[in-house]
């Protein structure tokens, strides 16, 4: 099957300094791929290049088989940028922030009844339905991340691209995020996620791509062989009964 995202020989620069030096990366439908690596290895730049937020200086990027230059079906993709907060300079309710995701379908038209239903559904999926009318700045760090994920889920995307969703989130909230993500994976959503440590997400990961110096250093295909030095040790404390079996069937 056609990959949902493919980077081949991608190079990119930030402020004249080469950051990606020929990255090859492919995510198939329903696959969960983690991007790992030390600071400055090009993890975030890779995903920002993948959503066309950083211009490529070389190589090719395809989304759902279409060269990115001609790609217009942004509603097929849910993006969770690296943010510590979902709040802006003016108060906004959880519902208002999440509704912004629906503009991938609506464009410049106003939102309607179907959009409101999709927002309710997305909030349900991340377990924040009861907080819909609350201001986002009253939420905890983990809840902010769930708001950002709900915003990406409003279009029922086939691919989720997430940049460090676990950064600054305590372990309890990390487990809730892992549950949310597992539901998406069970629905067949493909995921490309930048992580500093695997943490509670480890059981979901099909493949880990380790970057170093703007290149792919190694690719680990099976969860049991995932690089231990990038794993989060607290996951050892997880109750094995709540950890689902590895979803290898999706491969």
């Amino acid at each position, binding site marked *: 099957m056609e990959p949902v995202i493919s980077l081949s020989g991608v190079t990119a620069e930030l402020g004249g300094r080469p950051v990606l030096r020929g990255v090859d990366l492919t995510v198939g439908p329903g696959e969960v791929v983690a991007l790992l690596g030390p600071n400055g290895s090009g993890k975030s730049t890779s995903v920002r290049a993948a959503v066309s*937020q950083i211009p490529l200086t070389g190589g090719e990027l395809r989304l759902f088989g279409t060269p990115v230059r001609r790609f217009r079906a942004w509603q097929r993709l849910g993006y969770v940028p690296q943010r510590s907060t979902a709040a802006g300079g003016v108060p906004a309710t959880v519902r208002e922030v999440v509704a912004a995701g629906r503009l*991938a379908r609506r464009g410049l038209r106003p939102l309607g009844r179907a959009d409101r239903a999709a927002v309710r559904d997305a909030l349900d999926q991340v377990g924040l339905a009861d907080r819909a009318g609350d201001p986002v700045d009253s939420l905890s760090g983990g809840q902010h991340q769930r708001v950002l994920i709900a915003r990406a889920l409003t279009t029922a995307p086939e691919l989720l691209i997430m940049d460090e969703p676990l950064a600054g989130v305590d372990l*309890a*909230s990390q487990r809730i995020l892992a549950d949310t993500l597992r539901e998406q994976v069970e629905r067949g959503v493909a995921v490309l996620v930048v992580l500093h440590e695997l943490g509670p997400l480890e059981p979901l990961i099909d493949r880990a791509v380790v970057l170093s110096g703007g290149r792919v250093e190694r690719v680990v295909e099976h969860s049991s062989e995932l690089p231990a030095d990038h794993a989060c040790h607290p996951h050892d404390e997880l109750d094995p009964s709540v950890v689902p079996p590895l979803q290898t069937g999706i491969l």
Partner: protein
Amino acid sequence: MLEVLDYPFMQRALQAALLIGIAAPAVGIYLVQRRQALMGDGIGHVALTGVALGFLLSANPVWMAVLVSVVGAVAMELVRSSGRARGDIALAMLFYGGMAGGVMIINLAPGGSTANLTTYLFGSVNTVSPSDITAIMILSAFVLLVSFGLRRQLFSVCQDEEFARVTGLPVRALNLLLAVTAAATVTVAMRVVGLLLVSALMVIPVVAAQQLTRGFATTLGLSVGFGVLVSLSGTVTSYYADVPPGATIVLIALGLFALIAAAAAPLSHRRARAAAAGAARESEVVAAP
């Protein structure tokens, strides 16, 4: 009936004040959301060059100010979005260039002096002409169409620009439209409030409203309500007390802000306690086996 309504110049001033009271916070809310509260001031300074050019070329100063401030606002947006200069530095350059350009050009105009600029700098109720009212109505209609009609889109762009781009929104076009709308608002407001105080009416009603509100839509509605309240009451007060309208409007707005800040403090404490209790409840639920 109020005596103030008997005079045609006051009727025009109040019409202008009403439209400004609605339009200024409706655009200002997006600038505050993007933490660019001072952008209106930058545009105001550039508009001064436009007013002076109007005198020099014997053209209508209001439309000339619209033209020049749109060019300035678009240039500022392009500098900001290209990331070539820091936003505050680009803004500073605009302040200096606009003010110096205005003073220089007005002195080049035949018989012109900085005295001609005074009513534009500080506003005046008795200088709003019938042709000004037409210009103000056209510009306010445009401003309101953009700021209410594209509310969701502008909210998304000002809340998280990168995410908005990935949803496929025409972010650059929306940013330019917002810059043009802000420029139109400044020129709408300059006749009554004055260029130096225009930005206050874009910012103070919004920050006053957001102390009481929880969401964006309610903040937008309440800040427009506050904008109308302070601009109308300020204009009427300036007539009776014979004081400049711009300064009166801004001082009333600041008074309203202080009043709400004092009244809302207990409310925000209560909300903070409720939020902390909510977060604690959630972590207990998560921690429970």
